[in-house]
């Protein structure tokens, strides 16, 4: 898990899973299908990603392909930072 993924994991644990053992949130845990990211949580997460990593996630990029796991979210951030 690299620095980007770790930061995102910390944010999700703190914001949406305050009583969960950090080891239970793995890189592949389904965040949308698992009900962790509902609509408001998704908006909060996208706001965090935009502001923390200096990117602008587009409306059509807010989907399960990009946001359903720590791995996919970190990949999106890396893509946006290099584009």
């Amino acid at each position, binding site marked *: 898990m690299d620095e980007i993924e770790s930061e995102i994991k910390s944010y999700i644990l703190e914001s949406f899973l*305050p009583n969960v053992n950090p080891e239970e949130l793995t890189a592949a845990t389904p965040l949308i299908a698992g009900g962790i990211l*509902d*609509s408001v949580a998704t908006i909060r997460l996208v706001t965090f990603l935009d502001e923390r990593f200096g990117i602008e996630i*587009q409306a*059509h990029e807010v989907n399960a392909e990009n946001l359903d796991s720590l791995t996919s979210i970190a990949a999106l951030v890396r893509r946006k930072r290099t584009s």
Partner: protein
Amino acid sequence: MDFSHTPEQARLRQEIVAFARASLNANMIERDRGQVFSRELWKACAGLGLAGLPAPPEFGGAGLDPLTCAIALDAFGYGCADHGLVFSLSAHVMSCVVPIAKFGSDAQKHKYLPGLCDGTWIGVHAMTEAGSGSDPFSMRSQAVRDGAGWRINGTKTFISNAPEADVIIVFALTDPEARFHGGVTAFLLDRGTRGLKAGRNIEKMGLRTAPLSEVTFDDVWASDEAVLGGLGGGAFVFAHSMDWERICLFAAHVGQMERLMEQSIAYARTREAAGKPIGKHQAISHKVADMKIRLEAARLLTYRSASRLEVSRGVSLDAAVTKVFVSEALVQTALDTVQIFGGYGYTTEYEVERALRDALGATIYSGTSEVQRNIIANWLGL
């Protein structure tokens, strides 16, 4: 934060108040009773820039920043006694002009913004369905791939401006499983599109000059060029519009609160009971003092939230807080105004009963107070 008006903002406010008082307030009792919506008045408002406040000047807009938009709508709400017109025009800006300016392609901006800004066209967005008011993403309307475009079917209800709409942004499922997360797409449709039909005006308790109806989509065909904000981007297009609406449309309510407070003061100074003006009785003066407290708090909150629209994407919490506070403050101020006016306040002639009827919708539209409190609690980690 200092929200003192700049000289330009002060001039804008003065100009809007003077225009509204001179041009928009005649025959309000009859217009309210007859549910009269006036394209002529709409055009006059557009002539002052009100229909395209935040749109870029190159597309015919006034190019105002969000805080100045809020100041302008505060002035509009203060000067204009036709709250239905204020509501309709604000909804047009927040639900149609704002998302096209933000998410539209160059072609979409060129096609739609000039007409929306100069008052030729009236815009709406269509999200709410009969079974999904407070839970909009449980919608049933669908758009299915059909060649180089989409076939849209569904029915939307309580759509502000729909009977008069020239441009409609409709939200439909393009991936029913995904829903909020990439499953909803926004489409831009024109009046007269085959299969697109607005229903009869729905009669309401208040805001009676603001048209409202159902809209049906019966095998409506839309090209890929009609997609706004990208395929699956509808949820965020909608969220962006709602952030603006919950702040800037409610700025108009701040102005309405100020007018109601001034009317209450004027009445309380002249109406006498027990040998002195009723304003000298603490029961009345404290009501007015509370109006002032609510007004100042509402204005500060609204302006702060509006200023954040420009610098942050994460304003949903600010928008929800603003929406709840301002709408509930408006209702209380309208109730107190009627109470201060006593029996006269209950009559149509004094026009404050209409303000109360108009105010009551504010805790319902743009997401009920209950939904806003859910959003606030969620942002607080609950």
